[in-house]
């Protein structure tokens, strides 16, 4: 060690050793100091804005800053939500919406991944399909709602079809990108080990594309709830979108806010589940 490093003043705060130093020192790379405390701290900081928003919602109507008929205090909306949970109505609507969203999302994913893989692997297929895909992708899904209703009727089919449509393109495009950007060296080395084309696809191309595909799946998850709620507002006998519009039309304003809160929570929950699945599938990535 040179003398200049020895005479240097000790820094007030030492830097945390980079990962490979800790690895070479034989430390568990995954272990981070005070993980639990960090998590609690993060949660506290993250909820400041939410608590402030809730407080504003509670206080503003009570102080008469807004008309409490149109915007009842948060506690009233939560009371209505509790009632809807207790009398089983919320379960009915929630189940109707989640069923549609999940069926639609599943169909979209299972159709878009194989097609995206085919397009990503074959430039000829890509050239053939690209123009029409661009056209569809840029057509707002909700603009097609009347078409779906005309062709498929007012029932479940048209709503699920709309969800499929909205979820399909994010997954398709991310699959194409994921399959196209696989490191050619990985394919070359796997080929040199005697893997045949199907094995190359299932053992190299697809796993390599998973993180990219998942970005599209999460976008699709958000899109599914968005278009579904809109479709349910237009024509349905059950579902969270129906709950919100029906409550508004019956002037059950607290119920309406209860419905809106539920939709927000469902969106958060779907994203959380997909994030969890993504983490599980990409555990190999360096502290992603």
């Amino acid at each position: 060690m040179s003398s200049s490093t020895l005479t240097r003043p000790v820094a007030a705060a030492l830097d945390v050793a980079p990962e490979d130093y800790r690895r070479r020192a034989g430390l568990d790379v995954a272990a981070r100091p005070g993980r639990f405390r960090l998590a609690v701290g993060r949660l506290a900081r993250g909820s400041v804005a939410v608590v402030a928003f809730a407080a504003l919602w509670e206080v503003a109507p009570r102080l008469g800053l807004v008309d409490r008929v149109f915007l009842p205090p948060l506690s009233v909306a939560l009371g209505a939500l509790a009632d809807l949970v207790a009398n089983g109505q919320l379960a009915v609507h929630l189940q109707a919406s989640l069923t549609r969203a999940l069926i639609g999302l599943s169909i979209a994913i299972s159709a878009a991944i194989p097609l995206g893989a085919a397009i990503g692997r074959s430039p000829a297929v890509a050239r053939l399909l690209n123009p029409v895909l661009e056209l569809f992708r840029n057509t707002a899904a909700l603009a097609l709602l009347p078409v779906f209703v005309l062709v498929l009727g007012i029932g479940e089919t048209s709503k699920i079809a709309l969800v499929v449509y909205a979820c399909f393109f994010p997954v398709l495009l991310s699959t194409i990108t994921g399959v196209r950007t696989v490191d050619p060296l990985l394919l070359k080395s796997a080929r040199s080990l005697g893997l045949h084309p199907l094995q190359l696809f299932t053992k190299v191309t697809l796993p390599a594309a998973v993180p990219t595909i998942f970005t599209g799946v999460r976008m699709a998850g958000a899109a599914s709830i968005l278009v579904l709620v809109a479709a349910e507002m237009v024509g349905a006998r059950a579902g969270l979108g129906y709950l919100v519009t029906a409550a508004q039309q019956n002037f059950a304003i607290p119920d309406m806010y209860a419905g809106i809160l539920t939709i927000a929570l469902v969106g958060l929950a779907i994203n959380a589940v997909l994030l969890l699945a993504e983490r599980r599938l990409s555990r190999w990535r360096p502290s992603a």
Partner: protein
Amino acid sequence: MTAALHVAGVRKDFVVRNQGASARFTAVQDLDLVVPDGQFLTVVGPSGCGKSTLLDLVAGLTAPTAGRILLHGAPVTGPATDRAVVFQQYALLPWRTARKNVELGLESIGVPRRQRARLADEHLHLVGLTGFEDRYPHELSGGMKQRVAIARALAVDPRVLLMDEPFAALDAQTRESLQEELLRIWRATGKTVVFITHGIDEAVYLGQRVAVMTPRPGRISDVIDIDLDPVPGQDVRSDPAFGRLRHRVWSALQHPAPDREVAHV
């Protein structure tokens, strides 16, 4: 006698497209090479001389435009596990642990799961990575990654091990220790090794013979026997004989032998 590897009059042309016009580019031409069974051959040459093309051809990743490549007397028709390649950039699958990476080649030839894991652990032991079986590539240093890649190549029990500048990306110390490891593994397994490098020292240190390649078009201009008798624990590189051989290879790279016959062994 059947050589482990026999490259006979091989040429490889590539099509180069440039603004609509396509031209032919000859990467290697009149390539002749015979590697006896169990020999450690190094191929040295400047970058762009067609070393990697030669390796891809032997691996079966590309087909020659002309000429023949025979492996133990049988023509090479494509990639197969009788040859295995170690690449400079490791080429490990980042989502697989060390053990699962070593298993990749075994999966292609249908080895049952339990036997795969056993073979993988054995070969990781061979390269000195016992205890690291469940690490992901990002948790390993460059040298360790290359050890995994070597284990993966050896696990399919190839007759010929092909190595494409495998230590070029490593720091000097790691490179030296891996060179020694590789010689130990070679002695232990008795594999035929074709090792490509642009380092003269590395070529002389590792090879029983050094094939010198010269560019435009790539061909083997000279083959030099290395008759060093390294004593374990001794610094072979400081031996005057090492210096003389090093100089012979260096000269061969500077002034390619005009007589093509030299290349035949």
